[in-house]
């Protein structure tokens, strides 16, 4: 149990997927302009990321390994992720129209979020057990959401700041992300 908690915290803070491993940067830069958008995107990704990590784990160990087809994993995983996104959308539409309205437009974008594929591949590369994969994926997903929300809050404050002309727009966003990443480096060596 302690091991699982360590794996979760490690993926959440120490090796944060966005700030230390550069996965999922497109939504991190693209949809953190507003606080509520960022929170919705984070929530939707959390759900899809955990589910698809579980699904890819099962498929890899039950189907690809027995058949000796491990080299097909990229093709299989991307299909699994796209299906999980589709199923999530169908499920949300029928059970909770309100949540579907909030998350609706963000769901299709998650298919090309490299963090989702990255978590599935990294969990495989470290040969984690089933329970550890779940802990790793939920840590990664929560870390993604945390950073999205933090960054959106900082960017809302930045809108009122006076920024040198050359830095306005993307450069200041990247430099802010760099400073946030330095803050997360403070977690290095913590428990892992």
């Amino acid at each position, binding site marked *: 149990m302690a091991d699982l908690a360590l794996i979760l915290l490690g993926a959440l803070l120490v090796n944060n997927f966005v700030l230390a491993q550069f996965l999922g*940067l497109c939504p991190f830069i693209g949809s953190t302009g507003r606080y509520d958008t960022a929170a919705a995107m984070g929530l939707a990704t959390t759900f899809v990321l955990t589910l698809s990590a579980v699904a890819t784990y099962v498929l890899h160990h039950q189907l690809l390994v027995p058949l000796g087809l491990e080299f097909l994993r990229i*093709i299989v995983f991307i299909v699994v992720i*796209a299906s999980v996104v589709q199923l999530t959308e169908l499920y949300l539409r029928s059970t909770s129209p309100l949540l579907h309205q909030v998350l609706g437009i963000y769901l299709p974008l998650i298919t090309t979020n490299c963090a989702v594929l990255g978590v599935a591949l990294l969990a495989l590369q470290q040969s984690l057990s089933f329970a550890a994969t779940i802990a790793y994926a939920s840590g990664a997903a929560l870390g993604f959401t945390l950073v999205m929300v933090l960054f959106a809050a900082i960017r809302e404050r930045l809108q009122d700041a006076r920024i040198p002309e050359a830095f306005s727009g993307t*450069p200041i966003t990247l430099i802010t992300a760099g400073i946030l*990443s330095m803050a997360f480096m403070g977690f290095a060596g913590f428990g892992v």
Partner: protein
Amino acid sequence: MSHGTQIFSNAWLHNNPAWIQLLGLCPLLAVSTSVVNALGLSLATALVMVGASSSIAMLRRWIPDFARLPCFVLIIATFTTAAMLLLQAFAFELYLSIALFVQIIVTNCMILSRAESFASRQSLGASVIDALGTALGFAIALLLLGGFRELLGSGTLFAGMSQLFGPSAQAWQLDLLTEDWQIRLLSLPPGAFLAAGLLLAGANALINRISRSSTEQPESAGDDAPQNQGQT
């Protein structure tokens, strides 16, 4: 042919995937720790880009419109697998250091966006030119950032090129900065964000200055920006 050159310069310069459209940022920041990593990923991305764009241009008549995105993704995934196997076969050491990001080429939005907006509408020749131009634009950005971070972060340039070009390339390594002048931060993750932000701001400042001093066409402004980044 002038049509072809225009597609090419549009693809690599005016619509540069990295510094105009900000597509494919994840590999750009993650793999830019050294020139050799940058070159390896640029080559793999170019292979996938050209392969996927040309297949989509050839197959577009048979791909039904409602199912085009899944088809594109599957084609890209096939070429990504091929690029991964090729790197494993011919440059295994290099593959080990960029393995994750070679596999993640499949989710690089740059490739899917070119497939959707260009290759699915144009002829085979135009699509190949467009794919080559986009891949070149991505490679320039990746190599500039990789060179900048390698030079200032670890004081060398072209270290470890033997991973890609065989043992004779070991002599290519240039040791330019002594330890006192290196900025370790640039080879760590925050350095990627900071370096990319600073290079982009430098390019912006230069473009602003040029467009203010003379009302020239954006071509020359865009042309000077990457050169400036190279000298930094």
